[in-house]
């Protein structure tokens, strides 16, 4: 059973990528919708398996680490697999209606979409440093291809910049991997951390971890390395922007977090942890400030991603040399932040796409009057905004609450200010959009009405983000499930 679930997760996206490569857009859409169904069932199945039996290691090809590639299937990984299934399905469904099927080059959307999904699943489950590198490259290249798909010079400029940043980040990560392999002779994360737990830290490994985290921070668009993100996320088609903001940047962060939690305690040091936290805080303030000043709707949402990503980097100081309980609280808070931001931001980008489609302009001031014509999409947008502002009972609130407790519990009270300021600033940019759209504009009454399903999808995602706060306990129990003992190396 487990075998087939793993196969479904790792190989059906790849198989569907090949299938949709052979079809045109309309057939690709039908094939994709069938594939989405398979993926949701498989992800749910694996989630249930882990929720009942605990996590395990899975050696691909019958070879265990260190010779082969081992996958790490634990509570956190399956939570993200399920999150990916939800968000990517919504984006795939939305894209099938949103994207114009007449343009011949749009048929390449589907294979790229499926390759992206395959890469995401590979990264969530990856337990091998080099395999993670290949997975990250799979994600980056398909994301770049999606941004550039059928674009003009502006989109190409954004995608080239995105590609160069992603490649630089990958190379820094790969150099770190080379150093780790030279030092430990293995690529398995579990193998290295097992050895580190029993031996004194060897000299020379600090730079390896620093290089890997720096490269991944660049790929995650941590302030001040964020300049590539807003143009790419702002100019891509809305379903693509939603995928990029909700899932793609999380993949590189997830790898960095995994490395930090496994190696950080022995290889890392306090200065690096505090520096990362500080840069994250800088991202929260600077990203929100820039979001308030953007003239274009999707740029506002993209800069808001820069700000929300900043919170994630509070993980590094809040888990370094603190008590077990505080560290667990911080990890749970960050996980909730990842999930709620993924749901809310996907909802926001999809709703923004509907608004843009309706008024025929990307500018914020062009939204005047849209509240009368498209109240449903505007409502989804603002519900997602409520989660970003982290008001109760949203998932954003539950996340910030846990982070607040972790900051106080570890004595690092200075992060509390960041958490509060971030909430206020995000309220500012959400209300700015709201004010622009509630204004009446008697001159224009030419509005295009998007299809009903386009409006329903962001609403579902926004409601999920809202409800996450209420069911956070269930999510967190699966996430923190222990490993089966015999499976550990």
């Amino acid at each position: 059973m487990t075998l087939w679930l793993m196969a479904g997760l790792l190989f059906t996206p790849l198989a569907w990528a090949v299938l949709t490569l052979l079809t045109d857009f309309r057939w690709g859409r039908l094939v994709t919708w069938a594939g989405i169904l398979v993926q949701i069932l498989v992800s749910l199945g694996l989630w249930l398996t882990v929720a009942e039996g605990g996590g395990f290691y899975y050696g691909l090809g019958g070879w265990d680490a260190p010779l082969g590639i081992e996958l790490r299937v634990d509570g956190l990984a399956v939570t993200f697999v399920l999150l990916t299934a939800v968000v990517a399905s919504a984006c795939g469904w939305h894209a099938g209606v949103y994207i114009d099927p007449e343009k011949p080059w749009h048929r390449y959307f589907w294979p790229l979409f499926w390759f992206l999904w395959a890469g995401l699943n590979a990264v969530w489950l990856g337990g091998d440093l080099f395999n993670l590198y290949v997975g990250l490259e799979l994600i980056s290249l398909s994301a770049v291809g999606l941004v550039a798909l059928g674009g003009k010079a502006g989109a190409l400029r954004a995608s080239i910049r995105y590609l160069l940043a992603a490649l630089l980040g990958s190379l820094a990560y790969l150099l770190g991997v080379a150093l780790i392999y030279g030092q430990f002779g293995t690529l398995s994360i579990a193998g290295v951390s097992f050895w580190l737990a029993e031996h004194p830290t060897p000299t020379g490994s600090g730079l390896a971890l620093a290089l890997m985290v720096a490269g991944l921070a660049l790929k995650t668009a941590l302030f001040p390395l964020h300049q590539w993100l807003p143009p790419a996320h702002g100019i891509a088609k809305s379903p693509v922007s939603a995928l990029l903001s909700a899932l793609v940047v999380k993949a590189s962060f997830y790898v960095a977090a995994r490395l930090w939690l496994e190696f950080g305690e022995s290889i890392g040091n306090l200065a690096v942890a505090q520096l990362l936290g500080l840069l994250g805080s800088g991202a929260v303030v600077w990203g929100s400030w820039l979001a308030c000043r953007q003239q274009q709707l999707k740029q506002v949402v993209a800069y808001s991603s820069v700000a929300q990503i900043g919170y994630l980097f509070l993980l590094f100081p809040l888990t370094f040399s603190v008590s077990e309980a505080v560290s667990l609280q911080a990890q749970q808070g960050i996980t909730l932040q990842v999930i709620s931001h993924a749901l809310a931001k996907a909802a926001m980008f999809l709703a923004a796409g509907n608004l843009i489609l309706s008024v025929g302009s990307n500018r914020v001031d062009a939204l005047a009057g849209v509240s009368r014509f498209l109240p449903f999409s505007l409502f989804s947008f603002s519900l997602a905004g409520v989660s970003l502002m982290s008001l109760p009972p949203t998932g954003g609130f539950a996340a910030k609450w846990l982070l607040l407790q972790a900051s106080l519990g570890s004595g690092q009270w200075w992060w509390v200010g960041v958490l509060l300021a971030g909430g206020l600033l995000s309220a500012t940019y959400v209300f700015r959009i709201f004010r622009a759209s509630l204004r009446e504009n008697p001159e224009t009454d030419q509005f295009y009405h998007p299809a009903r399903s386009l409006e329903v999808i962001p609403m579902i995602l926004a409601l999920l983000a809202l409800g996450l706060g209420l069911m956070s306990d269930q999510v967190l129990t699966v996430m923190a499930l222990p490993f089966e003992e015999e499976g550990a190396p």
Partner: protein
Amino acid sequence: MSAPLLYSLAGAVLFGAGLFGLLRLSHLLRKLLAFNIMGSGVFLVMVGLPQHQGGPDPVPQALVLTGIVVAIAATALAVVLIRRYYHLSGMTTLDEVPDHREGDQG
């Protein structure tokens, strides 16, 4: 100093030089070449470093082969994107204003 160590130190030099090029040069093709120099540096470190004691190690050699294919794919994609970008905008840099306009397109 053994030969494998020399390889990895040469790799470190290439990485530093490539990084400088990637950050400082503005022409996109030059940036791409700098990226490839960096990549070669990483691959040299990857193959050279594990050889410092036990002789040749086939695992990093296989990893580097994979890495080279990935680098080629990325480079080729970047070249296609850069060509299309040049075709549409006539620019060879990422600046917002066209200041590096070069002759007719070829």
